[in-house]
């Protein structure tokens, strides 16, 4: 990076925009960040729409044909593209529909206006354009966002944490939620969220995505031993991980 402040931009696709809200929230407690960068495009937070930027943060999944051109235009402009949050990273909850026939889903949501709306199976943005870095989570973790921005400013590319969530839970000395009669995806999901769900007594739902070598079969067996039926296990894995699970199963979207 040169002495000039890098120009950064935020864009959204199919998402709830909660990750961008987390960014705005992070800025309130990290005002130095506003001195370190120049934000030129951030629909959620300002009206200006600059098209000259070096780092693009993209929230949301690619869920229709017309998204592709917009993604490609961002890719052409930006030196660095960062996927922001579970939808951009994994397809997120949007990908739950990928297991169901698209026509059924469209009719369910839009009724007799279904034909008016363009849609197709939701995908991570990395399936359309090259993504340089990912900040995972639903929503993203604010400290991880700040740490990632610092790395980008240093000219480094932040890497996804490879440790499973269990490590973080143990470091915090949380009681394992399995001992409370609940199930948790912690052993196969990336850490980095400060184990926020288990810290409040709930099992991990997997919003940060699978570690690179998840032992799916063994964890499914653990969940079954804790009283879950096969179908419940599949549903648990499909909240945030549908896209990854269908890839592992070599399943095509319907």
């Amino acid at each position, binding site marked *: 990076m040169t002495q000039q402040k890098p120009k950064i931009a935020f864009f959204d696709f199919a998402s709830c925009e909660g990750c961008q809200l987390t960014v705005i929230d992070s800025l309130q407690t*990290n005002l*130095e*960040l506003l*001195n*370190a960068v120049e934000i030129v495009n951030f629909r959620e937070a300002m009206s200006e729409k600059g098209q000259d930027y070096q780092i693009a943060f993209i929230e949301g999944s690619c869920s229709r044909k017309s998204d592709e051109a917009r993604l490609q235009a961002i890719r052409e402009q930006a030196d660095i593209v960062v996927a922001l949050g579970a939808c951009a990273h994994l397809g997120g909850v949007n990908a739950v529909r990928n297991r169901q026939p698209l026509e059924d889903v469209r009719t369910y949501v839009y009724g007799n206006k279904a034909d008016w709306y363009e849609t197709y199976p939701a995908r991570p943005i990395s399936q359309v354009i090259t993504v340089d870095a990912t900040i995972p989570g639903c929503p993203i973790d604010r400290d991880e966002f700040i*740490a990632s921005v*610092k790395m980008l*400013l*240093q000219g480094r590319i932040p890497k996804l944490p*490879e*440790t*499973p969530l*269990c*490590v973080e839970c*143990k*470091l915090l*000395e*949380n*009681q*394992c939620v*399995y001992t409370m009669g609940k199930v948790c995806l*912690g*052993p*196969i999901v990336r850490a980095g969220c400060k184990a926020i769900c288990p810290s409040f007594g709930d099992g991990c739902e997997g919003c940060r995505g699978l*570690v*690179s*070598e*998840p*032992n799916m079969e*063994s*964890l499914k*067996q*653990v969940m079954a031993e804790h009283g879950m039926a096969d179908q419940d296990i599949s549903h648990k894995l499909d909240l945030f991980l549908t896209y990854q699970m269908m890839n592992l199963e070599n399943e095509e979207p319907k």
Partner: protein
Amino acid sequence: MGFRVMPKSAFPGWVEQMLQTYRVVGPRKIRDRYMFDEVNSPGDLDLTYSTTVLPPKKVLLPQHEELLSFDLESGKMEAAIDTQPTVLLGVHTCDLHAIRLLDAVFEDGYADQHYIARRQNVLLVSLECLSPCTEKSFCKSMGTLSVTEGYDLHLTDLGDSYAIDIGSERGQALLELTENAQPATDADYSRLNQTLSDKWPRFPYRLESDITELANLLAVSYDSDLWEELGEKCLGCGSCTIVCPTCYCFNVIDEVDFSLNAGSRIRQWDGCTLSQFAVVAGGHNFRSTNQERQRHRFFRKGKYQMEAYGLVGCVGCGRCAEACLVDINPVDTFNELSRRRIPMTRRHKEVLP
């Protein structure tokens, strides 16, 4: 130096005295589990605790620790050395054995100034275990159910009083903070003897082989089929190594502020059962499967540490067994290896013409 005896009624007053000068860390009950944590008053302590999620190791080697701060602009760098006088109270004997191993490791070769500074300022007050803390513990098999050294003071619960063995001059000075510790009488000694002989049968031997055999058992089991079976079950979650009192592997990262010129160098715990632990520059992973990583873990516990430091690498606390969702544990692993061991005579016959 001889034992002292302190009535339990005097114990809170003694801890109050400690709190005047020391940070006191001991077992506290927080919701449904126990943790070693700083205590603000004697009532915070619960010396009847079973076991803790993390061992007291975290007082000497914190999970997340600043090693140094730096400022590239001024070129200044400063080591972060923690010398806060601390009493680590209520340490079970297994954990005390583990600290002896950590001492040996961190003093070895290029001594770790951060660990050593902390260690020199920590007084260890250990506690005799009178019944097994959990079903998973196997301290008796590992020879860690008692201690004869390594503590500053060692407490044994005699019902209405504590028998206190003084292990060091620092321990003696700590005990002098109270006027209520009197030299043990003949009657006290006889109660202490009775308590110690009563406790022994309460603890089961759970290993089917002797610990002195472990290193050899592992040596002949390197190619055992068991590792593949464990590898298939292992979730690779890393919990076993994170909760272990004798694991000390760590990673070092730099954290910077927004100037990008100043920041801290941070040490954080790592573990050999994690998938990326043995990845080196260029991307090669020297232990790329769960199977290899579990084998390595058990070799560390039963063989490598014994060879390097003459101290057992597993103290039988049972924390890893408690933490493992797929029930991989040292007792079953070592026992199964023992059952599957090919007798030496048969091996020789196969190898020799």
